[in-house]
């Protein structure tokens, strides 16, 4: 009692700043105690959760396998299958168990094919998981929408494409890429139609994902990319250029040449590399004629093209550049000269004693 009074008196007689400090101290002690208790709870929760997850996962896996082998030729859904569906339905009301069921179905879906995979897709619908996925599309939260689209993709639900496509220009990139992957995984090259209408940028990361998804498709017949090369959305142009390279689209030669005058320098450089890859020699002539108007990066890309497409008539142009101040251009020019005419290379190799030039000549001679 005495002690309590002492502390209360001490507190009341302290200046305001000290009172504040003691209030903070008490608050922090309270926070520390709370956070320690929370940490203890969190660690044991995480540990238990992991164990529980493993246990439920095993149970679901066994049930799904039983479901797959419980079918008969008479009923569309056998009695045993129906009881398994009911068991799953009772579990899907809990988000935790629903997520585990989805991941179990997906895991098994990856491991099997043919009729069995079809059965898993059916099970996804029969257990009501499809309805959950569709309800996510209407959510206000972007991560729920992306999650829903992802589930529809993985279970190949083609029928809801109109509901998915409305997210084409969603402000969140994660939703957009989920939608794009849905279209490509389910409709392959036909799914690329979204490129006609997309106004938001497709990041390089997303482009890689889309191209990888496209390459998984057994039908490699590419739809026309001409329109996309003329798109006002630069990322669509970049994507179309990648498509042209991977699928060797020689047919878009004119569109590619037109892109040499595109206002975006990165597009122009990518086009030069692509034209070189496709061996479109007309482009070389066009670029050679306006070489001095090109930026340094374009000039370097052009010389990389020249290494691939040089002809004997290019020799005077090459000779002009064997002393170019840029390392890459000079090196390319010397390499091309050696390939064009070894005697002339030998004549010009002592043109200067500049150390960089000498090193280049030595390297080219040795390789």
């Amino acid at each position, binding site marked *: 009692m005495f002690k309590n009074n002492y502390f209360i008196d*001490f507190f009341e007689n*302290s200046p305001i700043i*000290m009172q504040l*400090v*003691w209030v*903070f*101290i008490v608050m*922090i*002690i309270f*926070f*520390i105690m709370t*956070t*320690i208790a*929370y*940490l*203890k709870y*969190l*660690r044991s929760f*995480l*540990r238990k959760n992991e164990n529980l997850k493993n246990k439920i996962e095993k149970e679901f896996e066994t049930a799904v396998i039983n479901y797959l082998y419980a079918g008969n030729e008479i009923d569309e859904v056998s009695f045993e299958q129906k009881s398994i569906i009911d068991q799953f339905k009772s579990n899907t009301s809990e988000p935790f168990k629903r997520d585990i069921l989805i991941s179990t179905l997906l895991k098994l879906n990856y491991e099997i094919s043919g009729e069995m995979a079809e059965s898993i897709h059916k099970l996804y619908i029969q257990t009501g998981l499809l309805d959950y996925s569709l309800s996510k599309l209407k959510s206000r939260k972007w*991560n729920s929408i*992306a*999650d829903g689209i*992802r589930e529809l993709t993985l279970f190949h639900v083609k029928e809801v494409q109109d509901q998915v496509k409305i997210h084409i220009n969603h402000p969140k*990139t*994660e939703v957009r890429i*989920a939608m794009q992957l849905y279209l490509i995984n389910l409709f392959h090259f036909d799914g690329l139609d979204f490129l006609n209408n997309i106004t938001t*940028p497709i*990041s*390089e*990361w*997303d482009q*890689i*994902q889309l*191209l*990888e*998804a496209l390459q998984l498709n057994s039908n490699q017949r590419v739809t026309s990319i001409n329109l996309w090369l003329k798109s006002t959305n630069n*990322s669509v142009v970049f994507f179309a250029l*990648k498509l042209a390279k*991977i699928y060797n689209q020689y047919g878009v030669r004119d569109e590619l040449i037109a892109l040499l005058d595109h206002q975006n320098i990165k597009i122009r450089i990518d086009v030069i590399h692509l034209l070189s890859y496709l061996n479109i020699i007309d482009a070389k002539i066009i670029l050679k004629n306006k070489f001095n108007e090109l930026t340094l990066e374009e000039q370097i890309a052009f010389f990389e093209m020249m290494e691939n497409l040089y002809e004997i008539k290019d020799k005077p142009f090459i000779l002009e550049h064997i002393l170019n101040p840029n*390392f*890459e251009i000079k*090196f390319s020019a010397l390499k091309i000269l050696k390939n064009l005419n070894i005697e002339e290379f030998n004549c010009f190799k002592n043109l200067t004693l500049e150390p*960089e030039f000498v*090193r*280049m000549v030595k*390297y080219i001679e*040795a*390789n």
Partner: protein
Amino acid sequence: MISIIHFLFFLYSFMIIGSYITLGIISVFETVAYTQKNKFVNYNKILSSNISPSISIIAPAYNESLNIIENVRSLLSSHYANYDVIIINDGSKDDSLEKLIDAYNLICVDFLINEQIPTQPLRKGIYKSTNPAFEKLIVVDKENGGKADALNMGLNISANKYVACIDVDCLLIEDALLKLVKPFLETTDKVVIAAGGVIRIANSCVIKEGKLLDVNLPEKMLEKGQILEYLRAFLLGRMAWSRLNGLLVISGAFGLFDKKIAIEVGGYDTNTVGEDMEIIVRMRRFMEEKKLKYKVAYIPDPLCWTEAPDNYKTFISQRNRWTRGTIETLRKHRKIGFNRKYSSMGTLSYPYWFLFERMAPIVEVLGVIYFAYLIFYQQVRWDYTIAFILLAYLFTVLFSIAAIISEELTYHQYKKKGTGFKMIMIAFLEPFVVHPFILYAAIVGNKDYYFNKKKKWGAMTRKGMTKA
């Protein structure tokens, strides 16, 4: 006069605590946003993609003979499709090169280097493996020039778009390159010039064939204290600075850079011991002066595990170097400080680093001296003293616990039973057993910076990570 001094100390403490709370809160939001965003990313599909951009891992090595074979094997075991590993043997006096030649069937090859950044010359030359299994490996043997010079040699040699500069003894997580290159590829409205991730301490962890098998908490208090310190710095500090686009440093242990910009600014500065911070500041300054939109990205994933000093001598030497590095960089780029022309870097990051990183140890020591003066003249108000010291201590403990919770909620790496209790104990003890040495190292670092200019890198004695 005395009131003014008291007010200044109070104001400084108030500001530093306020900034920690603000950064902590921002970090939490940023980490939640990051985990939500990356929850469904299927890294495996992209890891093996040949369309993914090319990366060079540049790892300088100086007298690393003890672990060099294992370390290189670890770097070669990344799951990323499109990368090479450039080991720069920076004039080692031991048998590092011979060991590498034997282990990886290396032969000297002709190699034309575009010397865009001046470096020390080659010693024995450049080596590549005759074994196709090691085709990604390039070993460069050059004259000693220090870490920055070795990294510059790597920048000259790399033919790839991005360069990952890494300490050779670091253990990279298999998908580290992909996770770190993601910010460069997903950002569409600005250029990402550099990116870093969380560095974790591997002392006492079990490693086998370059892979992390088991995460353990070390026994020594110094090592445990550093684990907590890293958690605080990476999870509660840098995430916030990334959100504010104000990061001034990407850890030298592992960072990814846009090679073109790194070369354009002249590569690493060989005249500083804080080259990792200096290059980021210079790259940012370059982008600001060119008025280009840019970002230094940071991700909370633990990508790289490194060996931390396990004795006070090495620890002090390391922190001494960090202090000198910070002073050198801030001094070299003082034009940026409090300058609105450099946007958030000038008005936010630089002032923060100057006031709360550069000046903090000095203010702390001044505080101790002033306190001693007050004791000597019997002017101490013990009620005030006890209250303020208690408040500062409890705040530090709370902040550390917040970092531990953040770790549990995100990556939950220290799973073993009993580790949680040990971590809490470290949070309470760390201010007594680690912080005084950090303060001491910082003060010696200041002294060395002004009065011992010749001092460069201290030696780090490697014990090697625990092997299975």
